[in-house]
């Protein structure tokens, strides 16, 4: 800290162990390494849920691993798939499917942007998993840590909808926004905003009165 630069963020390797996931606290900001499965696809989630309901295995994510709501574009370089860009997508649109996916796969880490609903928070608490919030719209920097795509599955889907397994190296920063103990930053913030609303509306009313009075008074010469 002596040089004025912020302290280096802690690094974690995916998949997290259940103990690592449970040790994380709301608001912890970390950098990620390791492997993660990503998709931005609504039909992908439907297909995952249907397969799991029928007891069929998924190509990935594996049990106990990490699964993020992210879109991606890659290009071939030799025999590797190098990342053009990745970016998180809105997680709540998968709320119908995620509780089942989290439970059946025992995911230790999920992620995306904007949070997930209460049933997902409960599922994460049961299995011991967390949700990482990633910055949306910051693709040029976020993509640096999503080094390469290792493989895809369900290639009949469009690129960003396929199940895509990525290797991460220095991915982030990401923030723990739902922990493994039933706490959600989104719920807390929503409750806080609701609690503040009566006061906010009163202050708006006062500001309206002030504005009307100001406009009723001719400017002094």
């Amino acid at each position: 800290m002596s040089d004025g630069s912020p302290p280096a963020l802690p690094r974690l390797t995916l998949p997290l162990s259940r103990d690592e996931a449970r040790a994380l606290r709301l608001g912890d900001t970390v950098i990620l390494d390791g492997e993660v499965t990503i998709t931005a696809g609504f039909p992908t989630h439907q297909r995952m849920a249907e397969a799991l309901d029928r007891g069929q295995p998924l190509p990935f994510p594996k049990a106990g691993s990490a699964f993020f709501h992210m879109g991606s574009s890659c290009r071939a370089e030799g025999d590797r798939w190098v990342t053009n860009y990745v970016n998180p997508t809105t997680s709540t649109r998968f709320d119908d499917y995620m509780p089942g996916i989290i439970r059946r796969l025992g995911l230790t880490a999920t992620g995306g942007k904007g949070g997930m609903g209460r049933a997902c928070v409960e599922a994460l608490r049961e299995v011991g998993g967390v949700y990482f919030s990633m910055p949306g719209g910051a693709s040029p920097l976020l993509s640096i840590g999503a080094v390469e795509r290792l493989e895809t599955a369900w290639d009949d889907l469009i690129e960003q909808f396929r199940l895509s397994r990525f290797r991460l190296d220095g991915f982030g920063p990401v923030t723990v926004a739902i922990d493994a103990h039933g706490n959600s930053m989104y719920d807390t913030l929503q409750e806080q905003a609701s609690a503040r609303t009566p006061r906010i509306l009163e202050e708006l009313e006062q500001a309206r009165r002030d504005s009307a009075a100001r406009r009723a008074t001719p400017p002094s010469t």
Partner: protein
Amino acid sequence: MPITYDVVRQVARDLYGWSLKKVPDDTLEALAEARRRETNPTSQRTLDFMQAAARAAEREDRHACSDAGFPTYFVKIGTRLTLDGDIRRAFVDGFADLVETIQPPILKFITHPLTLERSYTGKDMPIVSFDVADGADYMDITCSPKALGSGRWADLKVFSYPKLADIEGYVMECVMEAGSQHCPPVVIGVGIGGSFDNAAKLAKMSTLRRIGTRHDDPMVADMEERLLAAVNKTGFGPMGTGGDTTALAVHVDYSHGHGFVPVAVCFNCWINRRTAARIHDDGKGGRLE
């Protein structure tokens, strides 16, 4: 000299491409100002990261967001202009050119609303609205791609003889509904009055106004100021993980109408994608932002 199909096609292509790779200057300034005010350490880090990412997008010619959305254009045609060729078609073809040439490539985002199938083309794509500018000898084109992240939180409600408190209360309801999810800090557009469709368009056009400008009507300017203060007291913060800045601006506009008053509210995410160009009747012109 007329403005030709070829010129409009090229501008349509360029505007969309630019909009994906640059966060507008007024928005960068507003983010920097938000960072100076922000007291929450996580949000300070988020705002730093956003600004650095925006600079990297422009410097390295990369997409600010992986979701390129779908193209929307607003075209204002000067009444002293003549046009040569199929101008509506120029937007369709300009977007097709972009899809073919842009690097890195954009993904399929244009979605059939009934089947949810995705493509690079579609019915009524790009969405283009035309207006005229009396007496002008130029054409202004604004491009504002829209994606689900902030697009899905737009809302409209029709009131009958509302009080100001009803309208402002509704804006706050929309803000609460979106909560953490629209990639804040956002620019909020509020359109009031006229017809149903007019209010929606006013709201959208209001998001395109430069941050830091005030409405000409002091009554509306005051409303913008107090709504911005109110939104930022909610505490959702940058990326919705808590903080002092949930909105960079609230822009309001109105039209006279009847006793029924439609109120539309829409949001632009923090990258606030927006570019504009002006083409003069000699075919020359350039990027406005």
